[in-house]
């Protein structure tokens, strides 16, 4: 068969049924085969959106997302999406077209060194120089992308390699002597961790994206309840622990919740699972968890000791390690009691629950997010863009399940939210999908309204419209003497008309109470929609300034003082054993 046919066969054998792509000259052989294949191809309007959509698909489903871009500019447009997936450990396979092998290196038309460019931002990269390499290369790419610490893999496919002939092998063995991710944690280390936990009086769990990747939410919750330890998450970990649980503290870090930041500062044992201690999570590392012995569980050995010194490192899969830890802790049940700490946590947490209800105009983002929360269900997937919209969502939106909150963390990619939502909806067609974006970020990718219209992908985009690059303006207000340099968006489109010009339903929300109803109706319509939400441009979120410790928060939260009681925790159907 031809190389291009082998590519499609390899993808189908990996269980791929949908790809996000954009054709080009060197991809003609591949697209000619796609024409006849059963593979669903979604034509995006910019390659960056293909990569973000594949990423959103991957994060929502746990499967590998696939994107395709042509050589040269197609590949460079994929780059931002590949880097985004790399920073957040999302399993993506990016197929890039390349000029013919005889032209490589000659600065041929639309030639770029894709391997060279993507080397530092991908987990691995391949360039096929012979059609016979394709089956094993694609197989290995998927294996590398989804195992160990997941990440993006790039496969560069020269035109003549797509056109060449090969015999498709019957058996493909993966031969990667340098790639053997550790799954099972070292038993001695797990035992040490258990001893440390049993000795501690004030334990806190910090959960990151690794909990979601390894699907160990259940184990995490058991441990938390068993030892009475509250759970805080990184941005990537949001949703891995139900945020209405009495032991949930919400997100930690620069834009985190007061309860998280203060209790991590106070704790004597920090159990960090599947997180990499990013500067946005820890603040000044020298002031991070100053009273705590740290246990760090991570599948990537290079993350251990990289940013924070730890007492007990455990390398391996979080699910396997947490199960092991749970067995040991369960056997020592009589010894595990932190009742005073748990009581303190619950009282402290209740004293700093942020206020969400506001009845003024311009609309407060808190109120918008409260209404979004009320309009969606536990199965709704929300994606965010980057900036204030993202931090408001991370801070005020209550996530209850893993894989339902999708956001660009590590790279902080503006323009991520909308295409990621598109990918998530394609992956999980039965779930409602809402993208919460800022006006700046959405404008970077708004051309893909055409894609959601064409393929009838019913995502609802909520543009939190304040005519500012809000987060940058916030920093300018707080740290640059209110010199709002180049962050006021003076000329902006009418987003309602913009969406309508693509044939997408659009609504404008300006007053409290409108958002919930408008969003519910948009979701129920079963069609893609845009909601332009006019919000207060002056609202900022208190934060920890860069380089400061987690307790050194600037600005004050409006705290929910009227009803400082416990939040009611609704166990999900799964937890109660119901249907």
């Amino acid at each position, binding site marked *: 068969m031809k190389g291009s046919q082998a590519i499609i066969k390899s993808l189908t054998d990996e269980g791929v049924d949908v790809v996000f792509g954009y054709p080009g000259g060197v991809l003609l052989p591949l697209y000619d085969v796609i024409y006849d294949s059963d593979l669903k191809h979604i034509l995006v309007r910019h390659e960056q959106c293909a990569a973000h959509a594949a990423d959103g698909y991957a994060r929502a489903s746990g499967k590998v997302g696939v994107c395709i871009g042509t050589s040269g500019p197609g590949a460079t447009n994929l780059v931002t999406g590949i880097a985004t997936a790399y920073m957040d450990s999302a399993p993506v396979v990016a197929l890039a077209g390349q000029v013919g092998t005889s032209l490589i290196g000659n600065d041929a038309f639309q030639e770029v060194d894709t391997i*060279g460019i993507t*080397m530092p931002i991908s987990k691995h990269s391949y360039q096929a120089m012979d059609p016979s390499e394709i089956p094993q290369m694609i197989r290995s790419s998927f294996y590398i992308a989804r195992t160990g610490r997941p990440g993006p893999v790039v496969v560069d496919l020269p035109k003549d390699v797509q056109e060449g002939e090969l015999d498709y092998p019957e058996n493909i063995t993966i031969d990667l002597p*340098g790639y053997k991710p550790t799954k099972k944690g070292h038993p001695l280390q797990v035992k040490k961790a258990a001893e440390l936990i049993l000795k501690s009086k004030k334990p806190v769990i910090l959960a990151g994206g690794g909990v979601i990747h390894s699907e160990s939410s259940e184990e995490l919750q058991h441990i938390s309840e068993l030892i009475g330890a509250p759970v805080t998450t990184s941005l990537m970990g949001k949703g891995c622990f139900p945020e209405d649980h009495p032991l949930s503290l919400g997100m930690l870090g620069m834009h985190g919740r007061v309860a998280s930041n203060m209790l991590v500062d106070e704790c004597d044992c920090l159990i960090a699972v599947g997180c990499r201690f990013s500067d946005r999570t820890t603040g000044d590392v020298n002031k991070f968890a100053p009273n705590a012995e740290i246990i760090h569980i991570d599948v*990537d050995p290079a993350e251990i000791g990289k940013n924070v010194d730890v007492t007990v490192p455990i390398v391996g899969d979080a699910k396997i390690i947490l199960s092991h830890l749970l067995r040991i802790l369960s056997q020592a049940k009589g010894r595990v009691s932190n009742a005073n700490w748990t009581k303190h946590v619950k009282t402290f947490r209740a004293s700093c629950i942020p206020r969400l209800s506001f009845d003024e105009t311009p609309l407060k983002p808190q109120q918008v997010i409260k209404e979004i929360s009320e309009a969606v269900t536990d199965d709704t997937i929300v994606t965010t863009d980057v900036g204030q919209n993202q931090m408001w969502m991370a801070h005020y939106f209550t996530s209850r399940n893993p894989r339902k909150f999708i956001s660009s963390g590590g790279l902080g990619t503006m323009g991520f939210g909308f295409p990621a939502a598109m990918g998530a909806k394609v992956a999980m067609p039965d779930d409602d999908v809402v993208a919460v974006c800022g006006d700046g970020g959405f404008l970077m990718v708004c051309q893909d309204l055409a894609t959601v219209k064409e393929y009838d992908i019913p995502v609802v985009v909520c543009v939190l419209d304040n005519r500012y690059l809000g987060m940058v303006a916030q920093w300018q207000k707080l740290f640059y003497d209110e010199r709002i340099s180049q962050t006021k968006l003076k000329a902006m489109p009418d987003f309602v008309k913009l969406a309508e010009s693509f044939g997408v339903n659009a609504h404008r929300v300006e007053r409290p109470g409108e958002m919930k109803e408008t969003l519910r109706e948009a979701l129920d319509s079963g069609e893609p929609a845009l909601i332009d939400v006019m919000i207060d441009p002056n609202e900022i979120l208190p934060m920890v300034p860069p380089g400061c410790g987690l307790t050194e928060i600037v600005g004050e939260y409006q705290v929910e003082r009227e009803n400082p009681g416990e939040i009611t925790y609704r166990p999900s159907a799964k937890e109660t054993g119901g249907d």
Partner: protein
Amino acid sequence: MDEQRSHIISALVMHRPGVLQRVSGLFTRRGFNIDSITVGPSEQDGLARMTIISRGDDKILEQIIKQLNKIIEVIKVRDLDPEGTVVRELCLIKTHATSESARSEILQYANIFRGRIVDVGPENLTLEITGTPDKIDALIDLLRAYGIKEIARTGPTAISRGSKTI
């Protein structure tokens, strides 16, 4: 603060195009120091051995090794203990040498350092010397008096003493 030391890192890698770029790119991107890097085929088909000399404290060394191990084409990485390691570098030195006395002196130095004259011209001599980087430095210092025209050094390569292998 840990002490900054020079480390000899030996890495067994797949012998494929792009691997050196992956390794050296990693050092650049993460801000690790490379004093030198050498690579050549190993005893096993398809595998090459790299010797990387790098400076840093223990924390940096740990990260270097862990990050190198993350590269799919890197099979094994070891920080070699300087005491138990044979380190050698090859150097070619082209000196200015017109007078008879200069020529005979240079020849004597070459013998003392167990080097060889590998090329002779009317106005120059080229020496080949193998040894530890210190030894090579010493010879270069001696030859400066005659006028060094060109130096080409390979950078150190290293192997563990005794039966230990990586």
